[in-house]
């Protein structure tokens, strides 16, 4: 990953779409790493099988998807009023609501709160939004030590690695690699690679931190406008620890996370766990509202983050991207992700949802290769619990990328665009088209073998024939055959 000295000063390597390699280049090291591919494929096969079973037992699955999609669309259509209602209710319950237009602003808001709290350490619940804004390296540089508390996030933080999945971020790491990381960083030489022992090591490592560090940072799965509540969904209990024990809680939430009413959770919670981990319900779901005297943090800040989201609302097709509830079912179903894992996407949001979300968050200035990281097979759309038509958005973004590229001077002599311009010319004039067919047929004859197939072509045509043969052109075009047929009546016409 390249590092631009003029970019944000973050020493730690991050999944920053602005500096990431284009997808076709970034996948190469992964494709040559059989261990990583095996780890990814194993994890995905397990989740997929569990998900499939639990979705099948749900007779109203399609009705739940339709309701989920309708609720999320309704929210996005009316996002401003719902955010204002959330803000008012959360404030009334003792929460402090901040608004941040971009990553730099939210980082500064959080640092200011931490300075006020005189915090030098902070415990964190897994949040992809925090990774999106590169909060950890920023806080570390400002002298605040961050402790990730989700098991997968600890593995990544201690191993100086990056998330490759939004629900199971360390699925690319296997048990012996985890053992190595924990043994080295926790000073446990005799640690075994049994997942029980590794999990126990993480529990011990964190227990004292939970009990002593008074400031925590979380993300949010949902915000409830009706009540001003925040919802966090998790499995391990590290979330509950962070939400309950500290004195001060800071939550970062994308502006799109809001739901109209508390009751909408009856849809979202039913589809989320089944899609994400293949469980009927995740072990722990926490709902809290501002500050509750005597129970949990007595200071609660929430930062509502835009960072490119409000711009994505402008067009209906692209807007559906923001319905996403981050279940990761699309990446688990994706044949491309299965082969590449997440890092190649050069963003904290990998897989099909990342392929449409990342370029849009970057306002199409970066990550332009991601909309092509798909075979358009539609598996992502089929599994999406809020019915985001990802292939449709991919195609729309591809057309935007093409429109960008074909107008850039550097691409004028690009063989593809040159070819397409010529095709455009030919297809729009019948006489030119016929002439091209005539001369093309003569030209192609030199490459056609006796068996009627073209086995190799020169120049860029070779890219095609390198891996497959091309049938030789027929003697006549259809037009010619048709015209000839009219001249020689068969006598059978009616």
């Amino acid at each position, binding site marked *: 990953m390249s590092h631009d000295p003029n970019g944000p000063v973050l020493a730690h390597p991050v999944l920053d779409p602005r500096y990431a390699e284009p997808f076709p280049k970034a996948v190469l090291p992964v494709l040559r790493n059989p261990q990583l591919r095996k*780890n990814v494929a*194993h*994890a995905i096969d397990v989740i997929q099988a569990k998900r499939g079973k639990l979705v099948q037992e749900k*007779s*109203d699955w399609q*009705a739940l998807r*339709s*309701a989920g999609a*309708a609720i999320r669309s*309704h929210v996005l*259509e*009316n*996002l*401003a009023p719902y955010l204002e209602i959330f803000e008012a209710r959360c404030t009334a319950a003792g929460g402090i609501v*901040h*608004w941040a*237009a971009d990553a730099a*602003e939210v980082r500064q808001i959080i640092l200011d709160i931490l300075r006020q709290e005189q915090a030098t350490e902070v415990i964190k619940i897994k949040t992809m939004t925090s990774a999106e804004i590169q909060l950890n390296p920023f806080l570390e540089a400002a002298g605040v030590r961050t402790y990730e508390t*989700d098991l997968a996030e600890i*593995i990544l933080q201690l191993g100086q690695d990056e998330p490759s999945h939004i629900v*199971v971020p360390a*699925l690319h790491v296997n048990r012996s690699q*985890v053992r190595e990381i924990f043994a080295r960083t926790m000073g446990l030489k005799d640690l075994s690679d049994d*997942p*029980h022992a590794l*999990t126990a090591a993480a529990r011990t490592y964190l227990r004292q931190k939970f009990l002593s560090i008074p400031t925590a940072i979380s993300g949010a799965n949902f915000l409830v406008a009706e*009540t001003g*509540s925040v919802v966090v969904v998790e*499995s*391990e*209990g*590290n979330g*509950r*620890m962070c939400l*309950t*024990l500290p004195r001060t809680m800071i939550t970062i939430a994308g*502006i799109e996370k809001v739901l*109209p*009413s*508390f009751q909408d959770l*009856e849809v979202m*919670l*039913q589809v989320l766990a089944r899609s994400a*981990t293949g*469980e*009927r*319900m995740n*072990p*722990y*779901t*926490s*709902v*809290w509202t*501002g500050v509750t005297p*005597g*129970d*949990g943090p007595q200071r609660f800040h929430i930062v509502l983050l835009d960072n490119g989201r*409000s*711009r994505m*609302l402008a067009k209906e097709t692209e807007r559906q991207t923001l319905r996403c509830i981050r279940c990761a079912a699309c990446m688990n179903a994706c044949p491309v992700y299965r082969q590449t894992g997440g890092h190649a996407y050069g963003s904290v949001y990998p897989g099909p949802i990342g392929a449409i979300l990342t370029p849009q968050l970057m306002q199409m200035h970066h990550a332009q290769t991601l909309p092509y990281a798909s075979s358009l097979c539609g598996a992502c759309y089929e599994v999406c619990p809020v019915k985001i038509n990802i292939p449709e958005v991919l195609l729309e973004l591809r057309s935007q990328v093409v429109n960008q590229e074909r107008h850039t001077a550097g691409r004028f002599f690009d063989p593809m665009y040159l070819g397409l311009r010529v095709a455009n010319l030919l297809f729009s004039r019948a006489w030119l088209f016929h002439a091209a067919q005539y001369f093309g047929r003569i030209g192609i004859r030199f490459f056609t073998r006796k068996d009627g197939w073209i086995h190799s072509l020169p120049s860029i045509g070779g890219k095609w024939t390198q891996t497959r043969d091309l049938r030789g052109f027929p003697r006549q075009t259809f037009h010619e055959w048709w015209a000839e047929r009219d001249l020689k009546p068969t006598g059978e016409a009616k």
Partner: protein
Amino acid sequence: MNAPTQSRQQILDRIRANTRSVAAEHLESAYATLPRTYVRTGSLSAEARLALMIERLREYDAEVVECAPQDLPSTIAAQLQSSGKRIFIAPAGLPASWLALGFDWRIDRDLSSAEIELAEGVVTAAFCAVADSGTIVLHHSATEGRRVITLLPDWHLCILYASQVVETLPEYFSRCQNPPMLATYISGPSATADIEMTRIKGVHGPRFLHVIVVHDHADQPKNQ
């Protein structure tokens, strides 16, 4: 802080420019038209519903025993006894008859985290339970306790009445005419599958979940 109101206005303006929100007074009616054709009400008999709840709990490795209302105190005592533990937390509102004799009870009147950490177990009531997913719902009332007491102790005994068990998640939500300020939904003990998708029980929350199901339905128990 750098002009917070400025970003707020800027974000809301940009959202408004890019959406066609309905007028504030029509927001509710627009919301009311959203399709909700999913299953709201369960179809199982009371007996089957309870059986499903218990099956789900056992799938999660929760330990389940059943009893009649009048046997509850003795059942609690037996559970505590067999746990081999001695120090238990109780929320301030827990019925006195549940506090079995012979154990070291710490009643939660603002206990510190350190004091709670020293306890070996906790006994609470529940708000309700959802059979479909085996979920226990806590709204953290006086009998369910503050969030921290069902988190730090390694052993949680939850008392659940049969009449509190609903079949579907929407049935729970329709019981929330006044949404709770705090809620925790527990579906099995703390777990992770982060290492090679191997499910490991007990990361940070309680590793042992015990449930006493009290048959308070008229049409119920065989063992009464």
